C-alpha cells in the first residue's frame, strides 16, 4: 500500500466513524469534523522523503506556510521570517526559485525534496498570491537550469 493510500484510508476511517455515529441521531458536526481532519491529514506528503503535493498552493500550505505564515506576511520578534507579500525581492522569479531550492541563511533548502515542476509551481504561487501580481511565471526547465549539479539526484 502506498503512503497516499494509507492516509486516504485513515481519512475514510475517520469519516466512517463519523457516519457510524449517525445511526443514533447524528451530531452533524462529527461528520464535518471528520472530513476536516481528512483534509488536514492531506497536508502530510505520501512519501516521507519527498513532498508529493503537486499544485503550488498545496505545496505552500505544507512547507512555506510553516514560516512565512498563512497570509505570506511572515512575522518578526528576536529574528524574523520575512514577508513574501510586499517584498520587492519576490519580483525576481530566479531569486525565489533559487531560495526554495538551496535555502537562505537559516531557511532550509527544499530542492532535494521537490521536483522541478514542484519548485516552479510553488514559486509561481508565491509570486501571484498575497497581493503579488508578477506575470512572468518560471518554467520547470528554467528551474532545472538553476539546480546545482549535485542536486540532480
Amino acid at each position, binding site marked *: *500500500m502506498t503512503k497516499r*493510500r*494509507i492516509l486516504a*484510508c*485513515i481519512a475514510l476511517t*475517520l469519516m466512517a466513524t463519523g457516519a457510524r455515529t449517525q445511526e443514533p441521531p447524528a451530531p452533524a458536526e462529527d461528520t464535518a469534523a471528520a472530513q*476536516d*481532519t481528512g483534509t*488536514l*491529514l492531506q*497536508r*502530510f*506528503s505520501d*512519501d*516521507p*522523503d*519527498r*513532498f508529493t503535493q503537486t499544485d503550488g498552493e498545496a505545496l505552500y*500550505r*505544507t*512547507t512555506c*506556510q*510553516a*514560516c512565512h*505564515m*498563512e497570509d505570506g506576511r511572515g*512575522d*518578526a*520578534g*528576536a*529574528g*524574523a*521570517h520575512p514577508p513574501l507579500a510586499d517584498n520587492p525581492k519576490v519580483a525576481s522569479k530566479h531569486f525565489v526559485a533559487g531560495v526554495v531550492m538551496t*535555502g537562505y*541563511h*537559516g*531557511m*532550509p*533548502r527544499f530542492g532535494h*525534496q521537490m521536483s522541478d515542476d514542484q519548485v516552479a509551481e510553488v514559486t509561481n504561487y508565491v509570486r501571484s498570491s498575497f497581493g503579488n501580481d508578477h506575470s512572468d511565471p518560471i518554467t520547470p526547465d528554467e528551474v532545472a537550469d538553476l539546480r546545482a549539479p549535485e542536486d540532480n539526484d
Partner: protein
Amino acid sequence: MTMPPFNPSRRQLLAMIGQVAGAAAMYQAMTSLGFAGESGYTGEPDLQGPREGRRVLILGAGIAGMAAAYEMRRAGYEVKILEYQDRQGGRCLTIRGGDRYTEMGGHEIACDFEGDGYLNPGPWRLPVHHRAVMDYCRKLGVPIHPFIIKNNKAFLHSANAFDGRPQRIGHVEKDMRGHVSELLAKSLHQGALDDAVSAEDREKLLEGLRGWGVLDSDFSYSVSDDLGGVRGWDIRPGGGLMADRKPSQPVDLSPLLQSGLWEQLFGFNSYSFEPPMFEPVGGMDRIADAFAREVSDIVQLNARVTRIAQGEDGVTVTYEDGGRGGTVQEESADWCICTIPLSVLVQLDVDCSDAMQKAIAAVPYASAFKVALEFRRRFWEQDEGIYGGISYTDLPLVQIAYPSYGFLSDGPAVVQGAYDTATGGRTFTYSWSTMTPQERIDAALALGRRIHPQYDAEFMSGTSWVWHRVDWSLGCYGQWTEELRDAHYKTLCEIDNRLVLAGEHCSHIPAWLEGSLLSALDAIKRLDQRENA
C-alpha cells in the same frame, strides 16, 4: 497476510548478518538526533582569571550563556548577560498546565493540563556519557531519575503491515534475532562460510547462535517453552490450578522483513540513546532553573541585541530594551561571548571577519515539533502494560513517548503524542509546523488512535510546540553537513578580535545540551588564555 517463503541468497544473507552484527554507522544515520560521539568534557574549567578588572558581555541566557557566565564570574571576570526573552533557559524549557505562549504568526499555545504532567518542547533526555551535563546536574543540585528510552513492551507500528496492528518491540527484536541466527546456522552447516570462519570457531559460533537466537536442537527458530521464557507467553504461567502456560508464537521472517518494523528498531542502536538515560525530576527546565539560580542577578531580560560593534580593545553591543522596537541602549565590555542562534544572528549587524560572516550565514536551522496529550487515565500502563518508553510508527506522528514518571498513579497523565525532527529527513515536520495549535492536536489524535484506540474515550486536552515558530531560535538546531563543517566550522568557533561565539551550533554535538556546555567551556578557556597571553 500471506507472504512468499523467504529464500535469501548468500549475498542477502551476509548483508543481513552485517545488519545484525555491526551497522552502527547506518543506525546512526537513520536516527533522529542520533549524533554519537564521546563527550570531550575534562572536568571543571581551570581559568586563570583576568589580570585586572575585565568586563565580559554574554549574549543569550540559554545553557551555553549561563554556563559561560557562571564560570567566568567564578574566575573573577565581571559578567553581564543580555537576554531577549522574559525568562532564562533558552531552548531548555518545560510547559505545564496554565502556561501560555504566543508563537510566531500570533497563534496562542495554551497548556491546560490538569495533572502534574508536562511537555519538554526541546531537550527531554540525557545520555550518561554527556559528562558535562551530568556534572553540572550534580554540582548544581538537579535531581535526575531514569528516562526509559527502550521499553520492550512499547510498540513498533506500520499502517500497512499486520493489518495495522502494532507489534511489541521485544517481539520484533527477538524474532529477528532468532531468524537471523537460524539462517546463519544453516549457512554454517552448509559450509557456506568456511572461508570466513575456522572449524573451531564454527562450533563455538553454532553453540552460541543456539543460545542467542533460542534455536531448538535442529537449529530452527520455533515455538518452545524455552522461547516462552525469552519471548513471553500466550498463556502466562499462573498459580494454583490456573491454565497451563503456553509460549507465544514467533512471527515469520518474511512478513517481519516486509513490514519495515525491523528498521524502526535501529534507532535504539545509537550510542546517544544507550540505556540508561536520565531526565531531571519534574521537567527539563530544572537544569535551566539551576543555572539561573547562580546567575540571574547578572541577567538583563527583555533585551533584544541588534548590533555587535568591535573596536581595537573592546566591544559595544546595541540592544532594544523591551524587545523589537524598544528603547535603544548600549553596553560596552572588553570581551563578548555571543550564544545567539545563527538563524537569528545572521539577521543582526555584527562586526567580524568576512569569513565569519559567511560561516554565520551558512548553517540552515532544522525543523522540529512536538504535540503532548493529556488523558484521563494511564491506559498504556493499565491496558497495554507499557510503563514508559517510546513507540514508533511510520505514520506522520513518528513516535509516542510515555511518561517515565508517576507510574501507576490514578488521574490524568501526559504522553508526548507526536515528535519528529528534520534529522530523519522526513517531510512531515514541515507539515506539522504549518498547522495551527488546534490542528496539531487534531492530527495527533486522528493518527494516534490507530495505535491506541483508547484516545477517543480518554482525551482531555493537548498542547504543542513548533520550533520554527519560535522567534528567538527560528528552528530547532544548526543543521551542519560535513561539507559545511569543512568550509566554516573552525572559522565560526575562532575568536574574532574581541568576539567569540558559543552555543550548540559551535559544537560537534548539535541539538544536545552537552554541545552547548562544551562549546561554552571551550570558548571561555580560549578567551582566558588570550586575556593572559
